[in-house]
């Protein structure tokens, strides 16, 4: 990069940092502003909400037999519509909010999936939200219904769901109106110890001066990572899902263009995007597929390896584009787990006799060693995809957190030294560190995609290798 470019880039980054700073300063007051605007909205939609609430109760609300809760809801709904707008926080539950910058919370919030695609604090793109609760069925709506504001916290409930930190939560405490849209106040959380002595965070939504417990969406970690089966499932086109779709479409478009160029003129020298893709394509083919799988069989697995590599790389890079939402798909364990499961299946259904023999009855070792090796190899079967899953998610999440932490310096300095001067000092420190980290993350994006692919290729190679004893 030439010197003038560096200067322009630095100037650009300073401007951006100042914009972030000003947004953050705004943010400290925006909670009340958001609430006010949401209140106005509620007034405008008063009739809709009211009607909907009635319909819901009359036709579908009681099918699941929780009639006590239902009745309570109805009364509350009426009360809310008649005089609830400005009394959402009657008891001052939201008053204790500290305005201090929370780096951990911010980082986790930014790398989490969500039901809203936010670009800075400015643009909030609503996403299709598909929620399923066994006791009330499916809900299909756009997440704009939540009227999300600062920190992607919603101000409106929709059929018993609320948005907190960009994610849909379901209100489980009885008494909350489960039908229609209702204005609510802030969110609170309480930390408690569960029966196993683990810390557990419970979120609450404040509605008409009372706290109502929220259920996070169901996760299948069995409580291992703080989740578990709850009262609802979220099948939304989330921020991560949207990013996947966009990256998949982008890659498909680019590769289609290249493929057409090959079809049009097969023996022409490649140019433009075709040349770029071909370089990477041939690198994966010649350095990954052929050496590990062999000249004879590589063509069968090449599309799989290419799909893995380019999809991971595309998503890694997509997440690195500043101000494009910093989506963290490849840093999300669910996504990498799915990839790992697919790799596990592809490797093992292609395993030949030799492969299984080497796992369960290793040739060439004494018989008493064979069971030990079988146990080790058997575990290895599972550990291989497990490491794939953890490595990719860990690396990419770590990169995102590092960048967010360096950007967070702006606000930390602002908090320590107070106001704009602190922000500017933080910006001065933040920019070189962030630039360095972003450069590093671009390398990491390639390296992790490459590592995932090369390890997959080596597992496939081991599974399909012909042994000659």
């Amino acid at each position, binding site marked *: 990069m030439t010197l003038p470019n560096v200067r322009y880039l630095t100037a650009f980054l300073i401007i951006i940092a100042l914009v972030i700073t000003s947004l953050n300063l705004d943010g400290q007051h925006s909670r009340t502003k958001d609430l006010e605007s949401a209140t106005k909205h509620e007034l405008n939609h008063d009739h809709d909400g009211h009607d909907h609430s009635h319909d819901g109760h009359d036709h579908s609300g009681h099918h699941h037999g929780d009639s006590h809760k239902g009745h309570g809801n109805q009364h509350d709904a009426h009360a809310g519509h008649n005089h609830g707008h400005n009394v959402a926080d009657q008891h001052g539950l939201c008053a204790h909010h500290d305005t201090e910058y929370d780096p951990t919370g911010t980082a986790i919030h930014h790398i989490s999936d969500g039901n809203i695609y936010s670009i800075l604090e400015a643009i909030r793109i609503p996403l299709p939200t598909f929620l399923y609760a066994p006791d009330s069925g499916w809900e299909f709506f756009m997440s704009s219904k939540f009227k999300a504001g600062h920190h992607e916290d919603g101000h409106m409930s929709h059929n018993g769901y609320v948005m907190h930190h960009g994610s849909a939560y379901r209100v489980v405490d009885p008494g909350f109106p489960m039908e229609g849209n209702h204005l609510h106040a802030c969110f609170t959380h309480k930390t408690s110890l569960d029966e196993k002595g683990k810390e557990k*965070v419970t979120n609450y939504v404040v509605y008409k001066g009372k706290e109502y417990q929220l259920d996070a969406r169901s996760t299948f970690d069995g409580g291992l990572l*703080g989740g578990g089966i709850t009262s609802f499932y979220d099948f939304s086109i989330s921020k991560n899902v949207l990013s996947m779709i966009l990256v998949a479409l982008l890659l498909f478009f680019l590769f289609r263009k290249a493929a057409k160029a090959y079809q049009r003129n*097969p023996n022409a020298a490649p140019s433009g995007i075709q040349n770029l893709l071909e370089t990477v394509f041939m690198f994966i083919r010649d350095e990954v597929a052929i050496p590990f799988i062999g000249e004879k069989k590589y063509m069968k697995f090449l599309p799989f390896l290419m799909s893995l590599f380019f*999809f991971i790389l595309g998503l890694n890079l997509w997440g690195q584009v500043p101000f494009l939402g910093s989506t963290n798909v490849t840093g999300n364990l669910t996504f990498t787990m799915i990839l790992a499961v697919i790799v596990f299946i592809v490797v093992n259904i292609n395993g030949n006799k030799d492969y299984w023999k080497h796992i369960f009855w290793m040739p060439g070792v004494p018989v008493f060693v064979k069971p030990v090796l079988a146990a080790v190899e058997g575990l290895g079967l599972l550990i291989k995809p497990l490491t794939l899953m953890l490595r990719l998610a860990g690396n990419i999440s770590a990169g995102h957190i590092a960048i967010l932490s360096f950007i967070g310096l702006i606000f930390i300095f602002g908090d320590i030294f107070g106001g704009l001067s602190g922000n500017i000092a933080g910006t001065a420190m933040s920019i070189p560190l962030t630039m360095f980290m972003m450069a590093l993350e671009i390398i990491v994006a390639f390296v992790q995609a490459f590592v995932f692919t090369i390890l997959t290729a080596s597992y496939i190679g081991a599974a399909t290798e012909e042994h000659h004893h």
Partner: protein
Amino acid sequence: MAFLISFTPFQPTFGLAFWSLLIFLLFWGLMAKYAFRPIAEALKKREHDIQSSMDEAKLARQEMSNLKAENDKLAAVAREERTALLNEAKQQRDKMIADAKDQAKAEASKIMQTAQTEIEAQKIAAKQSLKAEVGTMALDIAEQVIRKDLKNDSAQVDLVNSLVSNIKLN
């Protein structure tokens, strides 16, 4: 620190799992069919084509050099042949000239000989005809002498003298 306990990016959720699986499988299937396989095959074909054209070029070069060597050989043979032909021609020419000279000489000498013989024959013939002439003249003279009856001696002597002076050889 509350967030670390519920580290949401690492919580496996059904929705994201479902969509990830669906999108990746679709991506894999479509990319394999419409992009990766065609591209891989096109690359393979192109590499094969490049290799075969290189091989062909090598072969052509080999053939060319073979051809050239053959040409050189042919040229050398032709040159040799030409030299030989020239030499032969020269020899023939020399021989022809020599032969012609010899023949000419022989012819010339033959002609000379013939001419000599002719001359000799002519000479003999001339001598004979001269002898005959002289005889006739002598007889004439003798006749005339006899006819004058020898009237005086002196007159006769004169006559004989004049007659003799008339006899001129050639």
